[in-house]
Every structure is written in C-alpha cells, then in structure tokens.
C-alpha cells in the first residue's frame, strides 16, 4: 500500500481543473489526492512524463450474461491469445485468455495496463444482474458499474402505453436499486420486444407496431424524464433504433429532437450515423449528426469507433444480430431474456478491404474530428463491438497524428468514401488536453462521477503516468505507472498489484406503492420470486442521487 506518494515533475493534464500540461507535483494520501504532503514523503519521479487521471470507459461490455455467452462461443479465437498470470506483490495473480472478449481477470489486468481505472458495462439484463456482480467481483483493479436494460421491459412498456409515467419512474427507480445498477439503458427502444414478436424493423420513432402507445418516442421520453427526475448521476443512456442500417441518421436525429431540452446520453453514435439507404448506397451522415450534437448542449455522446480488425458484436439488440448473421454467414447466438430484453452475438471482422467497414471507420473519425466539444463527445469503441479496448491507443494515434491517419486512410476501401469530410481532408489533431478530456474528464462529467476524472484534492487517486514517445500509440499502450485508489498497480510498465475494487451503483427512492403492482406482475408472469429478484446490496455505499447529488 502506498499511503503517501508525491508524483514529481510530470506534465499534468487535468482539464477539469484547468491544468494543461503544467509541470507540478501530484500528492496522494490514503487513496485520495491531497493538496500537499510532508517533504519526506515517498516520491515517484515523473520528470519528462505525462500525468493524467486514470482512464474511464463509459461504454464497454465486460461482464454479464451476454458477455459470457460471447466468451463461450469464441473458444476458437481465444486459443491464440493466452494470458499468463501476472506476478503480483499483494495478491495471487490469475491467468486467463484474451481475444475480443477476455476472461474477467484478464479484462481487469489489461484495462489497468492501459491506465484505465474505471469501466462501465453498458448492457445488463435485470434478471442477470447477480451474474454481472459476480463477474465484476472477479474483474480486478478497475472500479466498475453497469447500466441496466429497460427499453424493452414488458412491464415498463405496459405502463408507458397506459400513460402511467409516475409508475414507470418508480419501477425504474426500484429496478436500479434491486439490480445494483448505475444508470438506465435503452437498447433499440421497443424494437427488441418487436423482434421477439417477429417484427423486424422499426420504421420510425412514432411507429408503435402493436405496442399500443409504447412508441420508441414515448419510451425514450418517459425514461429520460425518469432519470432526470430521480436526479441520477448519469442520464438515460440510449442505443437508438435502427443500429447499423444505411439511412439511420434520420432515426438518430429524430430521437435527439424527441428529447430536445432533456439531458440524455446517446451511445456509439458512429453506428447510428449513416446516410443513404432506400436504394441509395451507404454514405456518411456524420456531418449532419455532429452538427446537431454540437448545437445542443443537453446531449452527451460516445463515438463507438470501428477499429479495423477483429471484433465481436454483442448487444441486447437481437434483431440487428440476426441481420448481421444472415448477411455475413457468421455464427450467431440469440438469447431472448425473460420479457426484459434480448441478446445477440456475432463474431465479426472489420476488413479494410470492405467498403462498409471502411465507411464505418471513417464515420467514427469524422464524428471525433468535427466535434466542437470534447466534454460531450467522448471515446469508446463500444468494446468489443467496434473494436477491442486494447485498441484505444491506436485510436488515440488516429486522432492525434494526421499524417498517420492520412496514411491509414489510403489503405482502406474507397468505394463509399467520396465526399466524406475525412476524404476531403480534416486537418484537426487532438491535443493531449483533449485526449485527457475524451478518455477521463469528459466521461467522468457525463457519468456524474465527482471524485473521478480529475486531480483536485479529494479526488480518488486514480492516476496514469505515461512516458512520452514519438508514437503516441506506444505512449498510451504502455503507461510507466498506474495508480489506483492510491496503490501503485503498474510500476515501470509492469503490473504489480491488484487492490480491492469498488462497485458504482445508485439506490434512488421511489414510492413503494408501485410494488403492489410489480408483485402481481411477478405472480402472473415471473419465473422467479420477487423476494429472490434483488441482488445483495453491493458493499460500497451507493453514489448519491437527487438533491444530494
């Protein structure tokens, strides 16, 4: 344990506190940042290095029933990526396997090895929350939380159809606490329930399609309002309808307009930013979409960049995965889950010789490069959907190094790229300050994590120290030091310690009257006793909500 530590001489990037590469010391005591330390405190020499808060991943798939279904089906790819146990000083290291969906221990070690210290799983079926907590308990070093799926919950859809918005809010509040979740997630609102009914397309956000009044618009409005009324630290987290379809930028813009003026997070924008369709070829819709986002400060987003190479698509959006399976001929897993949500998995490869994959790669980069506000448009690859989290350093290089980006651009399929902003030449290069925002300070602010993503006194001592390198991908791939809750976990580039982790979750208040109704719903349609449904409350205190937040 490092009770006290002074990191000296590094160039500090702490954008939340207006620090932009200034050389200064960072002091740590008992797991938190402090203003100063006695002179004889232990020192860590960071001269010539870059100091940032620990990385925060706002949207990844690392723990849960769907992730485990993916691990299981990927037995062939993981043989090529064994992960030996690290030699740790404070714990017995555990071995594992990598590939696109690593085993739990390997997930924690690899994130920490990249300087990431906090990760959110973006899609957990309520009924499987217990599974997710158990997997996160076996995911070392990183603090973690998850978003619980509500956009196709049959009980909620009924309440929304009946206009029972208060009851929907109370149910959402109960479900967040019962599952130990951090935020409300909507995946293809209404569309997954329709897929289970063999209705395979959502034509517009006002298309009820037999869900009576529970249109995608009504689902998004009700749950956006619920999250905001409950004062959740993170607003509703939305994966829009029509993911991956040409022309879907119209749906995405409609969804954003539907929630105009409401705080909401739109995830993996890249997968929702395509023009074309209806007999027209695929095209980039990035310019149009990012213009809306730039102009509307209530919107936050993550990009969901596609990285060329292997990936695994794993989503609650079962309908999309069927189409991917049908068009690619690849293996497909579908699991329909308990009147709550779905799960689809297709192992995939984004090939630079493929026209659509190349377009997707370009669309993501355009979103980054045309974004006016790094605080609101942050980095993700929707791991492992667009790419594996270990590719973040490569993505950072693409953003910071125009010459490299141009070189890569020449190597991809050009068929659909004519007229894209990127092909026309975008000269922007992200600065280290902007990288610190899109990988740390921005996600922390979007998530409402007040003690993470910055280095002011009182903040969690989650810190990454990078040695500079002409190749920024190398720099970001191999931090020299990583500190988690004040403990030195990476030392001279080696993983050395695996301290205890924290679970990030909320437990909002609700009107208990809703439970009468929920109880009779469970009696009629449930396969689990209501008394057995909630998980054991996580050890860590919940993150405050509402007025106290």
């Amino acid at each position, binding site marked *: 344990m490092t009770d006290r530590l002074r990191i000296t001489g590094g160039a500090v990037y702490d954008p939340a506190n207006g620090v932009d590469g200034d050389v200064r010391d960072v002091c740590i005591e008992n797991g938190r940042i402090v203003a100063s330390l006695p002179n004889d405190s232990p020192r860590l020499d960071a001269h010539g290095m870059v100091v940032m808060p620990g990385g925060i991943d706002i949207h990844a798939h690392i723990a849960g029933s769907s992730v485990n279904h993916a691990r299981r089906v990927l*037995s062939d790819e993981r043989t090529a990526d064994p992960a030996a146990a690290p030699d740790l000083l404070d714990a017995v290291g555990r071995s594992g396997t990598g590939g696109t969906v690593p085993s739990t221990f390997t997930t924690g070690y690899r994130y920490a090895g990249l300087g990431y210290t906090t990760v959110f799983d973006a899609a957990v079926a309520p009924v499987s929350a217990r599974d997710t907590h158990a997997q996160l308990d076996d995911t070392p070093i990183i603090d973690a939380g998850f978003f619980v799926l509500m956009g196709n919950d049959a009980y909620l859809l009924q309440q929304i159809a009946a206009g029972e918005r208060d009851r929907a809010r109370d149910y959402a509040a109960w479900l967040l606490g019962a599952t130990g979740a951090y935020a409300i997630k909507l995946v293809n609102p209404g569309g997954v329930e329709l897929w289970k009914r063999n209705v395979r397309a959502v034509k517009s956000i006002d298309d009820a399609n037999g869900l009576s009044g529970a249109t995608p618009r009504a689902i998004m409005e009700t749950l956006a309002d619920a999250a905001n009324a409950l004062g959740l630290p993170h607003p509703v987290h939305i994966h829009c309808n029509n993911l991956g379809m040409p022309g879907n930028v119209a749906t995405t813009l409609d969804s954003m307009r539907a929630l105009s003026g409401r705080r909401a997070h739109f995830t993996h924008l890249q997968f929702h930013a395509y023009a074309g369709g209806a007999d027209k070829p695929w095209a980039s819709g990035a310019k149009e979409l990012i213009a809306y986002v730039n102009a509307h400060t209530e919107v936050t987003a993550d990009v969901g960049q596609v990285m060329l190479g292997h990936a695994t698509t794993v989503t609650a959006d079962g309908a999309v995965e069927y189409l991917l399976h049908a068009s690619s001929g690849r293996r497909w897993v*579908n699991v329909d889950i308990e009147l709550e949500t779905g799960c689809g998995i297709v192992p995939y490869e984004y090939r630079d010789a493929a026209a659509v994959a190349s377009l997707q790669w370009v669309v993501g980069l355009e979103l980054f490069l045309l974004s006016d506000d790094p605080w609101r448009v942050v980095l993700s690859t929707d791991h492992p959907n667009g790419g594996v989290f270990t590719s973040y350093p490569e993505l950072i290089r693409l953003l910071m190094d125009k010459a490299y980006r141009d070189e890569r651009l020449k190597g991809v399929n050009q068929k659909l790229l004519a007229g894209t902003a990127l092909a026309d030449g975008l000269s922007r290069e992200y600065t280290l300050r902007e990288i610190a925002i899109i990988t740390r300070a921005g996600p922390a602010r979007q998530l409402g994590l007040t003690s993470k993503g910055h280095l002011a006194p009182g903040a969690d001592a989650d810190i990454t120290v990078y040695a500079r390198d002409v190749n920024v991908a190398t720099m970001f791939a191999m931090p020299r030091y990583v500190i988690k809750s004040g403990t030195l976990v990476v030392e001279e580039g080696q993983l050395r310690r695996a301290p205890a982790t924290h679970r990030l979750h909320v437990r909002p208040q609700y009107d208990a009257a809703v439970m009468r109704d929920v109880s009779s719903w469970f009696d009629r349609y449930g396969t689990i006793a209501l008394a057995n449904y909630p998980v054991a409350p996580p050890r860590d205190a919940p993150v405050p909500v509402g007025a106290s937040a």
Partner: protein
Amino acid sequence: MSEMPGLVEHVTCLGCGCSCDDIVVAVRDGRIAEARSACPLGSAWFGDGSVPTDIRVRGAAVSIDAALDAAATMLDEARRTLVFLSIDTSCETQRAAVAVADTLRAVVDGVSSSSVASGILAAQRRGRVGATLGEIRNRADCIVFWGTDPAARYPRYASRYAPEPAGLFVPDGRRSRTLVSVDVGDARGPRDADLRLGIPVDRELGAIAALRASLAGRSLGEHPLAGLADLSRTLAAARYVAIIYDAEPGALPPEPGRAESLMALGLELNATTRACVMPLRAGGNRLGAEAVLTWQTGYPMSVDFSRGHPRYRPDEGARALVAAGAVDAVLVVGRPLGLPFAIDAARTVVVGPAATAAACAIAIDTGVAGIHEGGTAFRMDDVPLPLRAPVPGPRVAADVVRDLAQRIAARRARRS
C-alpha cells in the same frame, strides 16, 4: 421434544435444473420436516437436511487445519492434478476451486464434459438460439418436446414454464399453445400432445434434415416419415417455437449429432418466425460450473492450466485423463457422486457434501449448496438465482476451498 416448525420461504431447489425458487421449507429441531411446493424429486433432494459433518485424513478424524494442510501438501506436490467441479456447490465455491486449479496449473473440469459436451461444442461451432424460461413461459405458442417428457426428470417444468402456465402472450396457458410430441424410438414426449410424430432411432438426424429442407422450401425427401409434413407446417405457422429436449444422458437414445442438428433447425426457423432450442439440464448447479469456468478462463469445461494459462482440451476431459493415468492427484469439489471416473483412494481429496462417504485420502464434509449454504446458482437457462440455507451445516464449502487455495499459494510463495 419438538418445536413449532420454522418456515423458510423462497428457497431455491437444485433437485433438477428447473431450480424452482418457491419452496417453503419447514424446519423442526434443525431438520427439514417438509419442503412444501417441491415435487417428489425435490423433496428427496432436500431430504431431512442431515449431512455427515466429519473430517478425515486416511480414515482418521482430524482437525480442519490438519486436513487442509495435508490436502495442500498432497496437491502441491503432485505433478499433475485434476480439479473436478461436481454438483451441489455454489458459484462462490466453484470460483474458489478454479483459483486452486490456476495456482496448481491443474486441469479443471466439471460434469458437463462427460454429459453434454456435444451440445456445448455444437454451439461453439454454429452458435445457438436460446431463451430464458420466462420467455418460453410467456411467449411460446408452439412447444416441441423432442423425445422428452419433462414429467420424469424435470417434474415441475410443465407447470412452471411450459406448456401449462398462462403467459403474457399465451393467456390461456396450455390452450394457447400447440403441444408437439416427437417420439424418438422409445423416448416418448408428453401423452397429451396436439401433434405426435414417431421417429425410429436410426432416422432421427434424417428427419431433422428433412424438416430443415422443407422449411427452406425444398422437399421432405423421398420417403418422408408420416407426420413430418404436418410438423413442418406447424413450426412454420407458429409465432414462437420452443424446441425442448433432455440434454442429459439416459433419457434419449445416444445420438451425438442431435444437439447440433436441432440447433441448426432452430437457427433456420428464425429466418421466417421466432424460435429457440432449450436443452433440459439436471440440477446441482452444473450450469454454474460452466458459467464460472467461462468467465474465469474463457472456456466452459475441460480447461488445462499446465502451461500457466487456460487451454481448452475438450477431448481430454476428466474422464479421459483419469482413464489414461495422466493425473497423480484429484481434488473433487462438490458431492462425490456420479463422477465420470473412479476415485483412486490414495490420491484423492474431496471437499463437499458427504465427502467422507467416499473412499479417499482426505475428506472434508461440507454443507449442500442451497440447503446448508447460501450463494448463487444458475438455472438450466443460465439465469442466476440466490440460494438460501434453511438449516445449518457443518462448514461452508467456499470457505474451505478458499482456505485451501491460500495454503497452496503460501507454499508456492515460500518456494519461489
């Protein structure tokens, strides 16, 4: 003297993979007087809650400390160890057992490799279409029991999941559903099916292939079985099909290709309607062992840590390794019953319920997960459930295995 019975509600039964969680256990004098709502199989699984409470090293009663030291020594000194995840353990215990295997660079396996490997491998090759039981209960309007009548080995399946209960989209329960029974040789489906089809054992895969052909718009072949065309039409007309078969050995005639063929049928049905394929699985939290192995190693069974990282060895599971004499120590975690290999008494450690009933070198009796120990177990559809502990047991298996893991790690640390 007899007290009033205490009642423990919402108890989860692990008597079969249905994992019914509505059991009310009546406890009198520290014993289970009754397991209300349980079927006869479940009642037998609960029993009266009495389990042996001993600790033995080569037949002699010893302290837990002495037994764990002896076990740590034996396992640590072995060249090649098998850690076997048997039944009636919680996921918490299984997690600790896989940690032991990792530290020992052992082989770890569970009951699945010798019972349902063909289905697991088929899903890895081809993918799968699944559903949780609540989805089948609430949505499936066509239930196909393939050579399987759940009444025998999954007694409450029909009443809790399908076809009996009313559901959100099948409001009249059984009457809202078409029940199909496919009899494979002598393996018969439910008696009251709406549609019945008999398949000779040697024509099973051919019949599935013919069904797939017909659903894809091709012909049923030259000499189709009687009733196959009806079944094909019924499947195509259904809104949501659930194809259900007993995946555990002993019910259907052995047919290694069945799992993959049925899965292919299920996958293809989704081109036009919605469908899932549900293998019925037995109890004791065997699905938990697969889930834990998968999240910790990436593989659901037959994992070899001998090179310092997990390798998938589906052809060299516990049964094959022991038969080949390839291991010189075995740690069984869980009940030492129904193991796919013969215990070599001199080289085996058992930590689990009634461990001391097995002829083995070191035996540490623990409680039964779900009767004496809480924790988590997985239902046959991979849904996790909490376990309750209606009566006290000797000692908690997870604690024992964690302690063993620490002792082994300490020995290794001293050496390095």
